[in-house]
């Protein structure tokens, strides 16, 4: 079994659209949407929800006023200013570090279980999909990403699937880092803009930092061919192959608007580009 993780350095480069197309093309796979902040892949795959389970974040503190002597120690120690007047803990600010819990001389702090999001399992016509939703203002996206990947792995093993396609989160922070461990290949979707170069460089740097094999797909490559060449030379510098070129195509917007993977409606250079990308990925991942 192989895991392909699709990243982009930032949102909006077409990561999810590329994943949707790969999901149509790959035969034996499980899809995992690790953009737990704003999961979008399911919007393309027309899923039927099969199960949902709560995801527990770090426990948060509450202070039992009956036991509290008002010594102010917890107030003084809390680095997140989560403890307000009257020793009321603000759950949004509390990071669950447990300092107050351990420090309180009279055992007045309790750590309470707290649901930070949900993990979903869905069936789509292209195969199973694991996705999640982190509650608004919740921390711990890295942990939820890990839970999504673990579930996808379990499903893939159970169904003896060849491939896991992971739609990664944007950025290079905690959730993206959480996607890298154990991935067989990181596909970076880049766009030929000035900012796209920066973004690409930062993801390639990240992949290098964590010792991951990477490949690049340039989306809307014909928008600004000069910048596309700049992306190519950047890839060269990092010894990362460019394995796909997708054109700027307004029909993509149409397909996405209708909630369908592009490959089902496009033709010409777009279709060729997607098929060629998939061939390259198959070769890199040594899939049949």
């Amino acid at each position, binding site marked *: 079994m192989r895991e392909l993780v699709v990243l982009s*350095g*930032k*949102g*909006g*480069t077409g990561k*999810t659209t590329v994943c949707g197309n790969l999901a149509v093309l790959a035969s034996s796979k499980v899809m995992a949407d690790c*953009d737990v*902040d*704003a999961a*979008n892949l399911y*919007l393309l795959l027309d899923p039927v929800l099969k199960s949902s389970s709560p995801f527990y974040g*770090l426990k948060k503190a509450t202070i039992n006023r009956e036991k509290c002597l008002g010594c102010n120690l917890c107030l003084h*120690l809390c*680095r*997140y200013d989560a403890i307000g007047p009257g020793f009321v803990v603000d759950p*949004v600010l509390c*990071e*669950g*570090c*447990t*300092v107050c819990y*351990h*420090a309180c001389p009279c055992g007045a702090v309790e750590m309470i279980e707290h649901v930070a999001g949900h993990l979903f399992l869905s069936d789509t016509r292209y195969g199973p999909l694991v996705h999640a939703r*982190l509650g*608004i*203002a*919740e*921390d711990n*996206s*890295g942990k939820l990403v890990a839970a999504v990947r673990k579930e996808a792995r379990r499903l893939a093993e159970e169904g003896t699937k060849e491939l896991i396609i992971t739609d990664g*989160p*944007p*950025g*290079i*922070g*905690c959730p993206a*880092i959480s996607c890298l461990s154990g991935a067989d290949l990181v596909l970076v979707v880049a*766009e*030929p*803009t*000035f*900012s*796209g170069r*920066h*973004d690409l460089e*930062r993801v390639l*740097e*990240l992949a290098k*930092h*964590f010792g991951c094999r990477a490949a690049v797909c340039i989306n*809307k490559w014909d*928008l*600004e061919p000069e*910048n596309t060449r700049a992306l190519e030379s950047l890839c060269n510098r990092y010894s990362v192959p460019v394995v796909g070129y997708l054109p*700027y195509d*307004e029909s993509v*917007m149409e397909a*996405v*608007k209708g*909630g369908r993977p592009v490959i089902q409606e496009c033709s010409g250079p777009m279709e060729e580009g997607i098929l060629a990308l998939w061939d390259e990925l198959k070769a890199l991942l040594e899939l049949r």
Partner: protein
Amino acid sequence: MIIAVASGKGGTGKTTVASSLALVAAEKGEVLFLDCDVEEPNGHIMLKPRWHKKETVRVPVPEINQEKCTLCGRCAEVCAFHALVVLPREVMLFPTMCHGCGGCWHLCPTGAISPGWREIGQVEEGSSGKIGFVQGRLNVGEAISPPLIQAVKERIRPGVLNIIDAPPGTSCPVIRAVKGAGFCLLVTEPTPFGLHDLELAYEMAIRLGVPCGVAVNRSDGDDSSIRQFCHDNSVPLLFQLPQDREVARGYARGIPAVEVRPEWKGHFLALLAFLEKGGYARCAN
């Protein structure tokens, strides 16, 4: 006044809108642009500031005096983030997992741990014509951005228009960026992705008690789903920017939208007038 520009997800044109807004506003008065998308700060590509100042941002981390340490294991036990591991001969720290909560140094029974500092990124300050510019830049491989966002926001100037370019998503970093703003402009695009992310971003703004309005980018003329959303939630739909290949090319080369399409300035002027009149106060739910 502090205006946050957010979007729920990346790539909707948040930076396009924020930079154009800054340029238009700068024709009328003093503006400070604060790029809080510290993982991928891109505003500087559009506004091309000259840099004056750079400061490193540090967060607290434990420093372990292996000589005083008796390997009792207390620090690893209290660390809720599993940043410390007690090995047979030493205590090991995984710095990127540390939240700097101070539990280990306060609770170590032998006083073997003291607070130290670790650099997580930089805050850079500069200016672009009449626009003051601040951005945070997170070091690669660093997982925790809120302290850096906080450091950027410490540069907010009272009495001028502060435009915050927020990071994507709806979790801690965005919350940190949008919190305390007087108004939040939610940028979206008329696709199911855009609508879905708009719903999340809207919920976030409501949670923070920040009044908000919507701007559609890459409109193809039919924005009925977004329109419906705005109508159902009584959020003002402030303006729509059409899908435009020339603007996309301009963006690719680092040219702001209002420079490619000066006729779009009217949208931003109208937004500024709307904010000035305090029209938004009515949309606080």
